[in-house]
Structure formats: structure tokens, C-alpha cells
């Protein structure tokens, strides 16, 4: 009994919180990268449309 209690001493089991923390860190950074990529792609499309309009006007 005493031996088993002794074995339980040590750091708290907080691994799930660590995983949650790093999921947030990498998840939010990934979402931000995706948002940069999507905005870049949308700007490219806008540019193509504007260039087409300009060509038609000329």
C-alpha cells in the first residue's frame, strides 16, 4: 500500500493539456497561413479580371 502510494508520486498527468495547447498553436498558425494563401489567390483572380477589363477598354 505504502509502496504503491510512493510510486504515484511525481509530475501531474497533464499530457492532454499539452496536446491541446500545441494543437491550438499549430492549428491557428496553419489557419493564418491558409488565409494568406487564399487572399493571395483571390488577389490574383482580381488582377486577371481587371487586366481583362483594361484590355477590352483599350
Amino acid at each position, binding site marked *: 500500500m505504502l509502496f504503491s502510494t510512493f510510486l504515484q508520486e511525481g*509530475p501531474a*498527468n497533464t499530457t492532454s493539456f499539452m496536446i491541446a*495547447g500545441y494543437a491550438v498553436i499549430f492549428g*491557428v498558425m496553419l489557419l493564418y497561413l491558409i488565409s*494568406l494563401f487564399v487572399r*493571395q489567390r483571390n488577389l490574383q483572380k482580381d*488582377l486577371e479580371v*481587371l487586366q481583362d477589363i483594361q484590355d477590352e477598354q483599350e
Partner: protein
Amino acid sequence: MNPKPRLLTVLDIVTIILLLIATYMVFFYAPQEAVMGDVQRVFYFHVAAGWVGMLGFIGAAISGIIYLIKKDRKWDIVGLAAVEIGIVFIFINIVTGSIWARPIWNTWWTWDPRLTTATVMLLIYLAYLMLRQGIEDPDRRARFGAVYAIIGSLSVPLTYFSARIFRTIHPVVIGSGDPTATGSFDMTPMMTQAFMFSLFTFTFIFIDLFWHRIRLGQEADQIEQLRLKTME
């Protein structure tokens, strides 16, 4: 659109490699903390994210000052890029802090001075984005944005020093904090190395994202001007 500079591609690759090394150091190199267990490992990227957030907000204030002096719109683009990155990383900082607090403080949230000032800082910069969206004229928007970013930057030192000035339960790892702080720990040399490397890596992440976001802002500005020209 301007082609992507070769140096930016190199910076992308270096940043990814640094992030992989930093992640390895956090999970496998730094030892497990004796009392808190694995959740203490959140600390390395939590502090680094706070560092990047504050770099962003200070960068926005500097850009604001330069804009007000030079009246060059490119500094408005730089300021907006800095604020946006700052918001993303302060959000990460606050959420990871809350996750760490649950097992250590036995609560997800408490209105502690550090947590409160960090949240107010985040809200101040979210309001910066809202302010910009409400102004049509680009020059007026840039001028208001610059003044707002300069005044808003006062929240950065207030947040940083809040855990050192006020009575708080938030631990202070660098320097001395309130002795009643809950969750303090002494870093071993290997923990210090992982921590410093994380700060170094996140500084690279900031520079890399900042460059990408500035390029995006410049392209958006060019397209806006082209659109106005087309409409004339």
C-alpha cells in the same frame, strides 16, 4: 504581381527547419517539469507567441510614426501587416495560457492583471481593424490607423510589466515576480536552451510572416489603384 524574392523562399525554408528543431527541443530535449508535468511544455511556445505579438504591435507603432512623418502609404501597409500578425500570436498566447491554467490554477480563466491587460491589448488591436474598415478614404484611414497604433502600443509595456508591478498569480520566468505566483518553476539549463531557441525561432516566424503579409498588402494596394483607374 511581383515575383517572390529568392531570399524570401530561403527564409521560408530556414523558418520551417527552425520550427521543426524548436518543436523537437520542446518535446524531446527539454526535461519534464517535476510538478506540473507535460503541460509546462506549453510555456515555450506560449511565451514565444507573446513575444511575436508584442513585436507586431511595437512594429505597428513604429510604422505609424514613420507614416505620420513621411506620409508614404507603404508604411500604412507595414503597420497593418504588423497588427494582423500581432493579433494572431497574442490570441495564441492567451488561449494557450488558459489551457495551461486549467490544471495548474484549477480554472480556465481568472481576471488576473496579466490576463486582463493581455486581453485588453488584443481587443484594442481588434478595434484597430474595425476602425480601418469604417474609413473609406485611404489617406484618412492610414492617418487614423497610425495614430491609433501609436496610442494602442501603450498597452504593450503595460501588459509586459503587469506581472511585475501588480499583485498577480501569473508566474514571471525572466526577472522577479510576485512570490505568491502559482505555477512558477526554476528552469534547468536544458529548459533555458529550449526556451531561448523557441524565442529565436518565433522571431524568424515573425519576420517571415511579416514579409509575406507586407507583400500581400502591397498587391492589394496595387489592385485597388488599378480598380480605381479602370472605373474612371
